[in-house]
């Protein structure tokens, strides 16, 4: 028996308030497991209440003749080692077991909710003291504390369960204090306070509604634990011998296990089924909560559905000055979709076609959610779970990436096509050194030895402008700045001299001064290695700086495409023009830096 508390997997508080308003019970009743569990528990409760009516015998009357009587006749389930009727004892025992469990849960809830509210809402010293006390409670197995308490306080089940309730209270405390702490900083609570509501009203209105549902789930889980530990104490023979309990019956039956093995079954079923029913009930409640909030949570940025419009793509002619170059990547009619929980598919990229020539920088520009990042992931075949290429071809050096096996695609990634992410810090594995994360893929991709790979990695770190490569090599990601991390990621991306580099807003998350340096670095590396680049961005400043060609994306489609120079000179699509206007309005009074500024101001919006 463990006393692990089912706290960790509760749904986030923010999603719960909404759910708490609609009836949890009604949703629970649509879940067959939940209904069964609830019905069983009601049945047990009913049996407990009606025990005096239902029981055929007095639970404590021992008949010497009936010792270990088999089921049937006067004793439907037989009689125990002292000749007492098992069915009657079982019914009466359910009273004590349920009342004991209820005692523990109520004590835990009262203590935990009150201290949690005070700690979370007012914070300060009380909060740290309470946290320390809850870690104190965790320092001993509950049963050891209960044994010690039993030594001095005697065998009463209610005293034991009160002590156990105190030990369980940190579970409620944690749920309530974090919910109250979250609410404390909400603007609507400040507003309520300004408008003259007292703390009591605010707590009642805004905090208790939030914690009600998780507290009920927690209560079900803890009730099961309380039943189990109480039965365990009685099974050890430490309970009150004058009162029938499930654990005490189990003790008696176990003592006679060789003579009447079946007798173990009844109290075991009572304990086991009640514990399982409580656990399943808690689970069903959680499911009911999560299902109502699930679809909202599942939607991620950039996966907005696409209205199907079949406006033609506005294409600018190639300027005659540019020499024709060999095609490196040709995306033709690409559509990408994500499976929805209801079985449908949300299309996020629709019929996208674009071409990147060898050594050319192709800008893919659009607002957040326009599908440009999804297009980039589709080319890498690294769409998030549930996403897939619905149709279209991705020709890359003679093969269709959309049709390659996963193994073949793994061989293309890193060696031929590389990727620079948007947010540098979250794209390095926090558990490994920078050096490890550079060397491992280099060794896999190029099949070279550790020493050679390390030498190469150090040279790369120097090349991307890291002042002390050896130190950064040995550092962990949290020890370096965002700008350094982005340089590391760029070093990793170019480490195997790819033909195509896909850069997903590579400067959006960086400081303004660092942005310019990173763009310079990218330009230099591109020229040096002759890579084709697909540059995903929402920043026309970056496009103007780096790109040979531009495709403008909106709502999953490309609306305008052509040489950067032509598009800047003559934007034809109204959407392209509105993108320009948005930037120019912002830029005019402040000069060239403002171009970069717009990027930082809108950062954090994934596309």
């Amino acid at each position: 028996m463990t006393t692990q508390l089912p706290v960790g997997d509760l749904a986030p508080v923010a999603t719960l308030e909404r759910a708490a308003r609609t009836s949890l019970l009604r949703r629970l009743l649509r879940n067959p497991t939940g209904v069964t569990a609830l019905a069983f528990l009601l049945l047990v409760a009913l049996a407990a209440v009606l025990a005096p009516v239902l029981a055929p015998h007095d639970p404590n009357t021992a008949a010497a003749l009936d010792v270990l009587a088999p089921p049937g006749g006067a004793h439907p389930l037989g009689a125990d080692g002292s000749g007492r009727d098992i069915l009657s004892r079982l019914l009466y025992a359910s009273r004590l077991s349920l009342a004991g469990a209820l005692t523990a849960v109520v004590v835990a809830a009262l203590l935990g909710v009150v201290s949690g509210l005070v700690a979370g809402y007012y914070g300060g010293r009380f909060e740290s003291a309470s946290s320390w006390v809850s870690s104190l409670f965790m320092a001993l197995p509950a049963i050891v504390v209960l044994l010690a308490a039993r030594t001095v306080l005697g065998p009463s089940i209610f005293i034991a369960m009160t002590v156990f309730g105190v030990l369980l209270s940190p579970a409620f405390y944690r749920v309530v204090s974090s919910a109250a702490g979250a609410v404390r900083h909400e603007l609507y609570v400040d507003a309520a306070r300004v408008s003259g509501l007292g703390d009591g009203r605010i707590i009642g209105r805004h905090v208790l509604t939030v914690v009600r549902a998780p507290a009920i789930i927690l209560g079900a889980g803890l009730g099961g634990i309380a039943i189990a530990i109480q039965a365990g104490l009685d099974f050890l023979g430490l309970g009150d011998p004058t009162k029938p309990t499930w654990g005490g019956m189990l003790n008696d039956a176990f003592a006679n296990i060789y003579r009447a093995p079946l007798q173990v079954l009844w109290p075991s079923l009572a304990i086991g089924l009640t514990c399982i029913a409580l656990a399943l009930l808690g689970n069903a409640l959680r499911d009911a909560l999560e299902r109502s909030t699930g679809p909202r949570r599942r939607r991620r940025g950039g996966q907005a559905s696409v209205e199907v419009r079949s406006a033609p793509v506005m294409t600018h002619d190639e300027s005659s000055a540019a020499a024709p170059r060999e095609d490196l990547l040709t995306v033709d009619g690409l559509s990408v979709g994500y499976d929805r929980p209801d079985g449908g598919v949300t299309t996020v990229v629709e019929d996208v076609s674009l071409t990147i020539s060898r050594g050319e920088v192709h800008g893919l520009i659009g607002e957040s959610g326009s599908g440009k990042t999804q297009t980039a992931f589709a080319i890498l075949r690294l769409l998030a779970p549930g996403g897939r290429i619905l149709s279209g071809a991705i020709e890359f050096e003679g093969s269709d990436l959309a049709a390659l096996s996963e193994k073949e695609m793994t061989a293309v990634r890193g060696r031929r096509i590389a990727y620079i992410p948007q947010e540098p810090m979250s794209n390095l594995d926090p558990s490994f050194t920078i050096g490890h994360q550079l060397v491992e893929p280099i060794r896999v991709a190029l099949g070279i030895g550790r020493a050679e790979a390390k030498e190469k990695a150090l040279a790369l770190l120097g090349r991307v402008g890291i002042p002390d490569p050896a130190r950064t090599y040995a550092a962990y990601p949290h020890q370096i700045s965002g700008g350094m991390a982005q340089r590391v990621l760029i070093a990793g991306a170019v480490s195997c001299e790819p033909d195509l580099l896909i850069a997903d807003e590579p400067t959006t998350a960086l400081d303004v001064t660092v942005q310019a340096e990173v763009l310079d670095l990218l330009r230099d590396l591109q020229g040096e290695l002759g890579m084709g680049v697909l540059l995903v961005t929402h920043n026309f400043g970056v496009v103007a700086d780096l790109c040979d060609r531009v495709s403008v994306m909106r709502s999953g489609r490309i609306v305008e495409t052509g040489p950067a120079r032509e598009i800047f000179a003559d934007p034809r699509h109204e959407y392209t023009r509105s993108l320009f206007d948005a930037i120019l309005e912002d830029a005019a009074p402040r000069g060239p830096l403002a171009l970069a500024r717009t990027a930082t101001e809108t950062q954090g919006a994934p596309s």
Partner: protein
Amino acid sequence: MLRFVVRRLLAGVVLIAVIVALTFFLLYARGGDIARRLLGQQATEETVRARASELGLDRPILTQFGDWVSSALQGDLGTSWLSAQPVGEAIASRLAVTLSLVIGATMVTAVVAVVLGVLAARRGGWVDRLVQFVSVLGVAIPGFLVAIGLVLLLAIEFGWFAPTGYTRFSDSPGGWISSITLPVIALSIGSIAGVAQQVRGSILDAQRQDWVRTLRSRGLSESRVVYEHVLRNAAGPALSVLAVQFVGLLGGAVIVEQVFAIPGLGQVAVGATSRGDIPLVMGLVVITAVIVILLNLVVDLLQGWLNPKVRQT
């Protein structure tokens, strides 16, 4: 790193001091009543008083506490009131038995739970649903019911194992393994279920991280990313849950030992509790607290090794 260890050790010492004080005052607060309970209702007032003074219970409680602490610091946890055996000795002889059960169950838990958790997280679909459902049941069913079921089925019905009793490792290694197999299984079911859920959850969390995509973009295969990087990142939370389970197993062993008639700490604890042998109960609480706090220290160090961020703070 050294400062980290010293700070944790100090915090542990403070925690033990508080537990010792609380337990002592809880156990000894009732002074003369304790002697009465030892001797029964028939004993005369005089014999009770004599016994109380013999056990030193008539002194002020702070004096008693001071005495206990000063001898405990010299390694003397007192003497059992009933068997006259030194408490330290009575516990030490049983500690190895209980620890072998708990450590065995922890190792079984770690291996099986990781396999199940990885399977559920990687395969998804019905495998995932099955593992999750079984986990809910496994957490819910009390370990001693599993123990009784195993005794009934595998020991009494099929006769594959000795139903009860304990063979020392030094007497017969094979017999030792056979005698702890069923208890270890009974103890492990619940903790496997709990840890498997956590392993599954942390793998799914880790898999959603941006760096997984980036590592794959560098040409690492998905399985390599999962088994080298994702598992490493999922190990920290899983280890924390395993530590919580260890404490739970220590408690569970008290009851499961009783089912299998294994002479471990559980037997000592139940005997001492029902007979009111307060020095022994006191010693058990202190030893358990020390074990748990040492375990948490080891887990903290392992966390530091697993997670470079922890190391610095």
